[in-house]
């Protein structure tokens, strides 16, 4: 079942484990699916020059981000034989240990989901205009750059 209408990706604040569990449960009626792969990005309490990241405040150039997410989804559906694809990313504050990105792909066979999930994560990190302000325990900050 292709699920290709434009969907909203952004969620205000962290992505909860209950939301992820519910999302998994919704796929139990889709009995052609044999394999799911889920990627979760979690905010790390990185230490830089003795200061520890307490949270990341995410912002985005949303107009372009929505267009880019849609293009990445379409490209992934064209490249891989997927049954379903769901992408969520946080905006606003996400504390260390909380989840800021949730990507969920499903297919009849496992090979497709492995390739698709890595493709999606790399494309999103490279192409979607999302910015992260790392806020330290002393309230100073620096801007995160994807490596």
């Amino acid at each position, binding site marked *: 079942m292709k699920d290709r209408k434009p969907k909203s990706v952004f969620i205000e604040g962290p992505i909860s484990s209950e939301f992820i569990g519910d999302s998994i449960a919704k796929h139990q009626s889709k009995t052609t699916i044999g394999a799911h792969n889920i990627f979760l990005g979690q905010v790390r309490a990185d230490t830089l020059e003795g200061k520890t990241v307490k949270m990341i405040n*995410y912002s985005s*150039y949303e107009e*372009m981000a929505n*267009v880019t997410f849609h293009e990445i989804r379409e490209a992934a559906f064209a490249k891989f034989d997927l049954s379903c694809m769901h992408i969520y*990313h946080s905006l606003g504050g996400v504390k260390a240990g909380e989840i800021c990105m949730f990507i969920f792909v499903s297919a009849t066979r496992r090979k497709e989901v492995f390739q698709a999930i890595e493709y999606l994560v790399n494309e999103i990190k490279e192409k979607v*205009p999302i*910015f*992260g302000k790392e806020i330290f325990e002393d309230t100073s900050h620096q801007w995160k750059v*994807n490596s």
Partner: protein
Amino acid sequence: MNLTIKYYGLLAEAVQRQEELFWFSQDSIEELLEALYAKYPPLEGMDFQVAQNNKIVPTETIITGTEIVLLPPFAGG
């Protein structure tokens, strides 16, 4: 023409604004950037990309829209 220039993240901090109207009479993004560097010298040494019509474009691109967006390095995921 009167362009809207938008700044995100670290760039917005550097120029101390998120958006401005900017009068500009030349053609290319390269020329626009020269004008912006003159107004905000710290911008010249910074790492960013430029978007027009929701696409990243090379600096030699001719300006066709009314909104130009300056984007610092991405940090999604």
